[in-house]
């Protein structure tokens, strides 16, 4: 059975269910559980649900230390950019301890943050910084694109014995979707073919999956069959599913909300280039333009990928194939 649920609630449900399942899971962050009326606080008590000061270094570092010694903390960081003031903890502390100790300790901490808030938040609150984290061995990076994935990937992130950065696109917070009832765990490292197709592969991440799905619908009306692949986790990256799709279609468009050279798309394009020799006919990347995110709406819309840009890119790679043939 499944029920319709909004994306934000699906994340919260996974946290609640995991906290019920495992008493070592704790949850804290800024501006949460501020009063006795808070439902999480009521359910789990103030030992396991806590309010934190505006201290990202300590919040994340404490999560790491608690994880090293037997807890499974979920740190609510709200916006991915707030991790930047504590980036040492994210990329040079959490993922290092298992390795540096020769496998003696593990760091099962979840760093939860929204990203890419393209709703007029301007230069410092609208960014996609997952590229900086997906290349850090020891760290896992999760980017769910549907309410079902949001729930299943959060459950998997909490159960994982490694540090996991759980990044949810703010623009999907109110999106509705079917979410399976009861225990639902989506394994980390397994991509999802969100729509099957034969002419072209669209690899899209996070919010861009929604845009790619809409673009695929438009393309279908023009007899272009697009397959939409959602990696779901950037680390581990399910390269096999992506490569298999590209080998089938021979053409790929990568859609990423991040600027071109700090996009996950660029990394995935490299894997495709190396592994689909002889199959690949054309590749395009649709990314944010190389600017910071501007405030005013027409400026923001211009910079960020949208359906039109995806449709145009797909048509160009399809046309490229026709020319090559």
């Amino acid at each position: 059975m499944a029920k319709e649920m909004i994306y934000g609630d699906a994340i919260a449900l996974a946290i609640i269910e995991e906290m019920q399942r495992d008493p070592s899971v704790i949850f804290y962050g800024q501006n949460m559980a501020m009063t006795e009326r808070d439902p999480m606080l009521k359910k789990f008590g103030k030992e396991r649900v806590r309010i934190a000061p505006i201290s990202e270094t300590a919040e994340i570092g404490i999560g790491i230390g608690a994880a090293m010694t037997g807890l499974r903390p979920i740190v609510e960081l709200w916006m991915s950019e707030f991790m930047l003031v504590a980036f040492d903890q994210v990329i040079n502390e959490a993922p290092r301890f298992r390795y540096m100790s020769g496998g003696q300790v593990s760091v099962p901490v979840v760093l939860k943050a929204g990203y890419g808030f393209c709703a007029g938040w301007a230069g410092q609150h609208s960014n996609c910084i997952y590229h900086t984290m997906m290349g850090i061995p020891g760290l896992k990076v999760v980017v769910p694109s549907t309410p079902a994935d949001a729930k299943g990937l959060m459950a998997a992130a909490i159960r994982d014995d490694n540090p996991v950065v759980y990044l949810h696109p703010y623009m999907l917070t109110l999106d509705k979707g079917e979410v399976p009832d009861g225990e639902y765990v989506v394994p980390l490292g397994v991509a999802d073919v969100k729509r099957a197709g034969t002419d072209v592969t669209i690899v899209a991440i996070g919010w861009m999956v929604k845009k790619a799905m809409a673009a695929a619908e438009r393309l279908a009306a023009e007899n272009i069959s697009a397959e939409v692949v959602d990696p779901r986790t950037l680390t581990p990256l399910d390269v096999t599913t992506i490569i298999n799709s590209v080998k089938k279609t021979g053409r790929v468009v990568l859609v990423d909300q991040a600027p071109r050279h700090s996009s996950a798309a660029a990394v995935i394009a490299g894997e495709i280039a190396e592994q689909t020799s002889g199959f690949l006919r054309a590749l395009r990347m649709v990314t944010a333009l190389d600017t910071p995110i501007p405030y005013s709406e027409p400026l923001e819309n211009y910079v960020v990928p949208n359906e039109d840009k995806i449709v145009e890119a797909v048509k160009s790679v399809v046309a490229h194939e026709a020319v090559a043939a």
Partner: protein
Amino acid sequence: MTRKTARKSSARRAPTGSEEMQWMYTQMVRIREFEEAVKSTFIEHPGVIRGHSHLGDGAEASIVGALSTRRETDLVMPSYRCHGYPIVLGTPLRKMMAEVFGRRDGLCRGFGGSMHLADPSRYFPGTSGIIGQGIAHATGAALTAQIKHRGQIVYCFFGDGASKQGAFFESLNMAAVWNLPIVYVLENNQYQAYTHFSLEDANAVAGDPLSKKAQAFSIPGATVDGTDPVAVKKVVGKAAERARAGKGPSLVETKFYRLSAHGNVITVPPLPTQFPEHEAVAVYGNRKEFELWKSRDPVKRFRARLLKDRALTESSAKRIEAAARAEVEDAVQFALASPLPTPEEALHYVYA
């Protein structure tokens, strides 16, 4: 004598009982001998130790005095200058030296080296090499202690330099707000890497002790002579009891003097890597200061005091010293004979 018997005896006798004094002296000598052996390895076996090693000579009284108040399951979380603590916890010196030498039999199988010793089975989960960041991890361990293991406390050690990091201020604030069972031991060895603390610490500039920082978090703060293990034991013991009683964190500044340079010379291979002269001499040309503090060497001072107090005889002191030297020499030989890891092992332990 094992740590266990020392604890039992301290429960039976007065805390200044000679058995515990001998235990303290033994641990201090073991730390000193280990650090001397690391230092001489740079000359006797060039190239065996890679990267950057940081020694704790001068810190022996602070380390041993603080850890003499520890109970069996209390966690110990120091910085990258980390050799001394596991020695007191009973980690085999063979495995420690093998780790410093990058060998397969090392404590961390050659993956961590001098800066990243870890022995979680002995309540020593690991250390960060980025100054001050480990303070947050220790604070997190105290959160685990508070939630899961009642009665357990955390000993967090860091240097004067680390007390200027954001991680210090953020962590102490959160520990105070959450009332965490932790003792912050600020080891003021007077040099932040190469810079004298009077040049970079606001309390020092004002002529105040560094423990004044505790006032910012409304927690107890105290400064103690870090060359005297008995004095350190007394002050840290009070902070530990407070943490154990659920009354929250304290800050203790143990003031002593690092007797070696910050670390070995940073050289590019194949140039030899050795320990330079102490910064007081090499950077500031202040040999007088260095000689003054050398004359206050905590190991030598404690030895003289124990002999004077008849807590130790000359012959038993020599026995302790000979045993420590033999233990360390055995560790060096073991580490030299231990195989290097095979290259492919590098792919292990990335993910759990």
